[in-house]
């Protein structure tokens, strides 16, 4: 929808500014300016691998690109000549998943991690002078202490001595080249390596409220460039975790399974924090270039952007506790966190250089009209949502609350109409926000009931529908809605009686419990409840979890640790003070840093999403990346199972560009540190280099596979369907067939076949 303007202005003005006031800022804004993003096209295909390329990384000054492949080779490419400089036969015995340049080593040291659970370090200076095909060099170091696949490596800018590796064995290890160059050979009597920085073998959580217990298979990790002590990891549950390396216990061996160390923050979109999604996991986590945000890519889910809680200003942080999840859904819960109008609007805000406010308001009003028209017509729903996003995400401070309310309700309705994955959840949020503006909004209540109905929360839906009916008894729609919800409720009730399956009951019972605990925490403010009642609830909670565990993963849970975590929780609910703390932090957000320190160790809170990026499908592989583009990170890119890659505007989630980059699945996206150049890879044996050289700007462009389909929405629809289908299937069947996916069992590798991993 090209009547939306771009938030980075006209590139002509940047050139104009540059000619009289050159600065880094202008260059940075130019690097991935929207006009250039719109003209990205494939410039080159780097040939040299004989297998899928699972890992890409640029060196710090962007002169070299390193890639790791299923062919067990690391290739190093020259950026300016686009030529293969070195091809290293790594000696890994399974697919390479990750590879990096070690900083400050003149890019001579490179490191790789692979499916054979090994981390290998190579010195490329030893390659020079050798014949090109004779590149089998002995690794400078070999770390064999992981027991499962190594999925991601991290390095610290400026640190030439240390590399971190994240493995599916649930540990993140720190390898210091100065201490030992390698692990002791396997089978020797030596003590096991003391290199475990994070032991998350009992760290995975099923839900935010749950204690951690199972092994968290790590899939991704990242170190913040601006605050290198911050370490972000993601794995086989819904929660990305932020650790402060300065606060972590000393390195340990993996002999004794340790309880997970306290983390600074959990990141998880609220609607994913509930239990019940067994195969939900993160495939990629990354910090934004300025370190203020993180980007999470979920398998079977979308890409989410969140703020990092840096402890200095909590106004921008959306932290929530398990109770808040249900706040959203519950009608009974009065909106007591009301309507603090957005902070900024209390101060004079419309800088005069920001093009006149009246024009913005006019534009926003038009956009809302467009969205409403689309809603009525039922056409172009996707673009109508983008129009609403534009208003709400880019200009919410500029417009009156009435227009904001209008827009929120319209977007909710559009989302409910589109019905892509999680759209209903997003609609709930919009309705909730709309209610905060106008507590007696009919539309907000109506769409809330619709959303809740779509989510199967018929009971809550009915509350809202009834309320809406009260507000506008004559409306025929709402009457019908109430009826329909009631029918659903009855049907559900009947089903419940018939069925004994754990799945549905579990969800319901959990939500019941949370309800009540939420009620408690609310009432804790007025101190009107008795201690007795509390512990009753907690008893119930414990029991419930116990049963849920037993049918699932209870076998390897040692009851001691589980009880420990539970006790912690009981203690928390029973004792008012810390609970209040958490609530305070979440709702008022004015916690001093000392309070923040304490909350760092209370893992019950998580940071909610700020923005969602929709369109791609991430199911088939668990190395799919979502990356920031450019030094300012104003655009977000993600690979997709359909071989395309998608670029969105960070601020609004607007889809900017869809490109076909692979015959089957596109996994890796790494943008050049300074230039408007992106490297991507996937199942194909080649790496594609993209730059803004297309002759005309457009949302799609011809990739290697010829002109892509013009109908972007169709592409996205089909991706959404695949995503939803996946709810049942962890791995898509078609992909498994196509690539003769082998067993994951250790020691049984077929290295030259692409694994979908």
């Amino acid at each position, binding site marked *: 929808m090209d009547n939306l*303007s*771009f938030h*980075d*202005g*006209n*590139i*002509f003005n940047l050139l*104009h500014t*540059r*000619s*009289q006031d*050159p600065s*880094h*800022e202008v*260059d940075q804004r*130019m690097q991935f300016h929207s*006009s*250039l993003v*719109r*003209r990205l096209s494939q410039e080159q295909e780097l040939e040299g691998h004989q297998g899928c390329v699972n890992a890409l990384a640029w060196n710090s*000054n*962007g002169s070299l690109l390193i890639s790791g492949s299923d062919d067990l080779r690391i290739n190093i490419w020259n950026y*300016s000549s*686009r030529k293969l400089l070195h091809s290293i036969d790594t000696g890994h015995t399974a697919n390479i998943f990750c590879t990096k340049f070690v900083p*400050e080593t003149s890019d001579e040291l490179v490191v790789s991690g692979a499916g054979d659970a090994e981390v290998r370090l190579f010195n490329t200076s030893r390659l020079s002078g050798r014949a090109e095909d004779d590149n089998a060099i002995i690794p400078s170091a070999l770390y064999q202490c992981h027991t499962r696949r190594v999925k991601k490596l991290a390095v*610290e*800018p*400026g640190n030439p001595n240390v590399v971190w590796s994240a493995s599916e064995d649930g540990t993140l290890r720190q390898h210091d080249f100065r201490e030992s160059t390698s692990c002791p050979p396997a089978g020797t009597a030596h003590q096991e390596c003391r290199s475990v920085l994070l032991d998350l073998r009992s760290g995975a959580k099923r839900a935010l409220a749950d204690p951690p217990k199972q092994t968290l298979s790590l899939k991704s990790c990242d170190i913040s*460039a*601006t*605050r290198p002590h911050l370490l972000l990891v993601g794995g086989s549950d819904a929660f990305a975790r932020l650790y402060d390396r300065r606060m972590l216990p000393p390195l340990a061996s993996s002999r004794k399974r340790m309880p997970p160390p306290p983390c600074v923050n959990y990141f998880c979109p609220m609607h994913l924090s509930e239990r019940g999604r067994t195969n939900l996991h993160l495939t990629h986590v990354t910090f934004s270039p*300025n*370190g*203020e*945000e993180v980007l999470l890519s979920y398998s079977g889910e979308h890409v989410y952007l969140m*703020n990092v809680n*840096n*402890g*200095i*200003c909590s*106004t*921008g942080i959306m932290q929530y506790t398990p109770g808040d999840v249900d706040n959203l859904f519950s009608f009974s819960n009065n909106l007591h966190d009301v309507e603090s109008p957005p*902070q*900024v609007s209390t*101060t*004079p*805000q*419309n*800088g*005069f*250089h920001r*093009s*006149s406010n009246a024009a913005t308001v006019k534009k926003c009003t038009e956009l809302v009209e467009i969205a409403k028209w689309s809603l009525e017509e039922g056409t172009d729903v996707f673009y109508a949502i983008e129009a609403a996003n534009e208003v709400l995400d880019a200009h919410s401070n500029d417009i009156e609350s009435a227009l904001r309310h209008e827009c929120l309700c319209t977007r909710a309705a559009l989302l409910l109409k589109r019905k892509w994955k999680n759209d209903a959840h997003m609609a709930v949020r919009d309705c909730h926000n709309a209610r905060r503006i106008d507590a007696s909004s009919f539309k907000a209540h109506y769409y809330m009931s619709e959303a809740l109905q779509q989510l199967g929360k018929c009971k809550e839906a009915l509350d809202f529908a009834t309320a809406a009916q009260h507000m506008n008894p004559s409306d025929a729609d709402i009457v019908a809605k109430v009826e329909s919800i009631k029918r659903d409720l009855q049907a559900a009730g009947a089903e419940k009686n018939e069925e004994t399956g754990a799945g549905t009951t579990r969800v319901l019972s959990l939500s019941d419990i949370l309800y009540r605990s939420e009620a408690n925490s609310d009432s804790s403010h007025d101190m009107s409840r008795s201690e007795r009642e509390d512990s009753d609830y907690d008893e119930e909670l414990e029991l419930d979890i116990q049963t849920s565990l037993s049918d699932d993963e209870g076998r390897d849970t040692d009851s001691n640790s589980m009880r420990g975590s539970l006790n912690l929780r009981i203690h928390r609910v029973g004792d008012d003070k810390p609970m209040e703390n958490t609530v305070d932090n979440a709702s008022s957000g004015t916690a001093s840093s000392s309070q923040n320190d304490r909350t760092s160790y209370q893992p019950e809170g998580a940071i909610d999403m700020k923005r969602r990026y929709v369109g791609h499908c991430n199911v088939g592989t668990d190395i799919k990346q979502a990356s920031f583009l450019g*030094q300012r990170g104003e655009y977000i890119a993600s690979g997709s199972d359909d071989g395309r890659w998608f670029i969105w505007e960070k601020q609004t989630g607007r889809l900017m560009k869809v490109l076909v980059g692979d015959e089957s699945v596109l996994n890796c996206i790494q943008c050049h540190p300074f*230039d*408007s150049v992106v490297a991507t890879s996937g199942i194909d044996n080649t790496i594609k280099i993209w*730059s803004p*050289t297309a*002759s005309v*700007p457009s949302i799609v462009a011809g990739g290697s596979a010829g002109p892509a389909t013009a109908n972007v929405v169709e592409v996205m629809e089909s991706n959404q369907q695949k995503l939803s289908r996946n709810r049942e299937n962890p791995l898509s069947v078609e992909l498994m067939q196509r690539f003769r996916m082998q067993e994951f069992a250790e020691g049984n590798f077929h290295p030259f076949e692409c694994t979908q991993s």
Partner: protein
Amino acid sequence: MSSWNYVVTAHKPTSVTHSCVGNFTSPQELNLIVAKCTRIEIHLLTPQGLQPMLDVPIYGRIATLELFRPHGEAQDFLFIATERYKFCVLQWDPESSELITRAMGDVSDRIGRPTDNGQIGIIDPDCRLIGLHLYDGLFKVIPFDNKGQLKEAFNIRLEELQVLDIKFLFGCAKPTIAVLYQDNKDARHVKTYEVSLKDKDFVEGPWSQNSLDNGADLLIPVPPPLCGVLIIGEETIVYCSASAFKAIPIRPSITKAYGRVDVDGSRYLLGDHAGMIHLLVITHEKEKVTGLKIELLGETSIASTISYLDNAVVFVGSSYGDSQLVKLNLHPDAKGSYVEVLERYINLGPIVDFCVVDLERQGQGQVVTCSGAFKDGSLRVVRNGIGINEQASVELQGIKGMWSLKSSIDEAFDTFLVVSFISETRILAMNLEDELEETEIEGFLSQVQTLFCHDAVYNQLVQVTSNSVRLVSSTTRELRDEWHAPAGFTVNVATANASQVLLATGGGHLVYLEIGDGKLTEVQHALLEYEVSCLDINPIGDNPNYSQLAAVGMWTDISVRIFSLPELTLITKEQLGGEIIPRSVLLCAFEGISYLLCALGDGHLLNFQMDTTTGQLKDRKKVSLGTQPITLRTFSSKSATHVFAASDRPTVIYSSNKKLLYSNVNLKEVSHMCPFNSAAFPDSLAIAREGELTIGTIDDIQKLHIRTIPLGEHARRICHQEQTRTFGICSLGNQSNSEESEMHFVRLLDDQTFEFMSTYPLDSFEYGCSILSCSFTEDKNVYYCVGTAYVLPEENEPTKGRILVFIVEDGRLQLIAEKETKGAVYSLNAFNGKLLAAINQKIQLYKWMLRDDGTRELQSECGHHGHILALYVQTRGDFIVVGDLMKSISLLLYKHEEGAIEERARDYNANWMSAVEILDDDIYLGAENNFNLLTVKKNSEGATDEERGRLEVVGEYHLGEFVNRFRHGSLVMRLPDSEIGQIPTVIFGTVNGVIGVIASLPQEQYTFLEKLQSSLRKVIKGVGGLSHEQWRSFNNEKRTAEARNFLDGDLIESFLDLSRNKMEDISKSMNVQVEELCKRVEELTRLH
């Protein structure tokens, strides 16, 4: 041209980026220190104004400039940090008047992301530490020890990542910073931290302030007794401290600079983006702040820095217009302004475009720049040499000498102009109608040639003829005394001052006379072994009427001798060498240094520094000014003394920064000159040339002369059309506040008067982005072609533009043809009788077609895609060189047969270009966004297609300046007889107002100079110990590489400033005579 290039600055940077005030040169002296990107200037405040003391280059782009006073010091030190993370602490050395480096170092870190908002460097008011914010999330601390020495630096983690400003607070027991930052919801806050030097960490500070004005951008720390900090926003100003919070709303503006007025910090000057200057007052009762007040004072140039000097005099430094010295008056003038501009300091920056023209058609290039920005936009005509503005002239043949005389020695103005001919002397004077009229001085002889004239003490005049010296009363005009040459001798040469006469007769007799009241006394006589060729007794000592030294030039032994007066004893004899006799000697003093100048018959000039007490000569230097004998005369202009060297290439010799400079005068040939400061023609010169006597005033004495044509709007593109004697410019109207009303124009200007002749307004949102004067195949007319872009706010790149073809008819722009394009026309070139345009990412060739109805149109012929943005295009023959936004330089070829353009070769490095030019068939020059220059070479002989398809980088150099435009041409007269005349040059213009020259040298000369450069690097140490080699190394985020195939002309030419000893050191290391070195370097200085 060649790949061996010599880069030299013709006009130094003038854009002022920083300034500060303090006692730097002595505890009693107040200094203004000004940074102009890569230079610093030190000025002394005197009752007369600012007096320059030092102007030195810094090997880096200055990011921070701060004065501070360490404990126990009586005067301030200067702290400088550069954009490439070098820092130094400088101290003034009164002995040598130079800067001493007290400390230096590198503050770069391996880790960290350079800050988006520029570097911050601050010094604790109690001088406990220096704080630097260079990378996001890091605050670097350089602590001082008790003795004021710097200790090892360390980093502290700063939680705030989007920092807008950091300042130290006054009056804190522990060093405390206030941090203005933006959170990730774009809200702005201030937080304070104490710096704990012991723990090397921050401690929570005394206060913080949340949710400020969204435009809050600047912190001003308030000194004791009030303390606290001012937070300057776009719509509010807030005073904040631990105990108080006061805010006032202001008219929306962006504050660009501030200056503190009072030591107690109660008043501040704020300069905004529109050039308005406000006074901000903190009202207070004792130490309690009661409120804020703000008042508009008036308008100045758009300030980048404001320094309050003293007595309501303020220095306003600007990078968008001229810097100014202003006085703030107590009462407003008629227009309500309290601001009175005392002085303007010319600033050419930002030069966004320029053209080279020869307006006088004398074979000398002039540069016309588009300078300044916003309301301070202007055109500047830059020309080498000094212009004479003719006031009056009369035809007079055969002038042999000229002198001006006063009617009384105390008169301010000259009355008489004595003009001497071969056999007569005529006297001119101003009549009542302010006309120059012949008159008489009765006591003078008029039927003979006058050899010399001078005013003398006791209201007398002296006339020297070949036979006698006559002393005449200036009031009665009657002869009072006369000295006769001995029989058989005639006076050959003579000179005089107010009280002395020195003359030489044939046979080597030197006679010294003194002037009394009505009396001439022969005081001394000497017989020399050879004939005297020239002499001078210009007083340079303390007494302006009496000289203790006499300079005498000799025939035969070709020497110059210094005699003491009145004894007439020889104290120094200097052999000049060679066979050319000295024709004119002159004693003079510049900037407190005494010189002896000696001009030879072949147009060469020797200069020596002279010790006035001993008469010793040192630092002999020789320059070539012309080819004919030179006559030297002093004159004053703007209360400074200069020397006029009359010859076939008249030159003004002056001194700047204690260095003698030679600037040619824009006149063809001058035989004689004398200053003539009459009431009707104040500060004028009388000049004899080509059968004419001219009276005229002289331009400011500087090497480059700059004429400003203020436009009041921002000129962006310029080109000249020889045939119609016009300039075409693209400009945008002053957009002071309302963006909506921004208007763009194509304007036609007369190339002499610079008056607007015709204007073609562009559509709304339509920017003029290129302009070209050209003609087409089969059409004898010349046209102006203008490329435009529609820059719509809702678009992210222009999708529409126009090419407009104008013809100039009767001084008006007539639109002949117009062609719509699919994007911005970034560049236009005449190409094979067609028009080549760069439109967004595409290169497009248009034919000029004749329609059936006789009208003409542009018709597209062919194009070439594959660029990101084709911003800069140059052509030569069938070759097209494109400078891309991000993809460096590529070479395209137009194939006539196929009518197609195809890519021939490209540079595969990812340089972000800012300008390109073709040096010759094979070598292309480029400038990129990290302030580097590069040359690439076509590889036609490559063995493979791939090799041939690659432009090889052959030269790299860090210029330290952002180049917006290259143009072939020269600023100096190209004399075919000199070697230098054969060297092709390219001129460039930069954002900081630099005009530079790139000269392609023959390899032999390059190799020689390269050796000289490396010798000079060892001898000339950079200010603050900064390394020249590092400074000139090519540097961007991607790589750093030693400079190659470019030489730093500024360094090489500073050879001429070296003392003789140092020159000799270099001479030894190079194994080349000093004279030879001087000669070769001096030749180079003629390039600009």
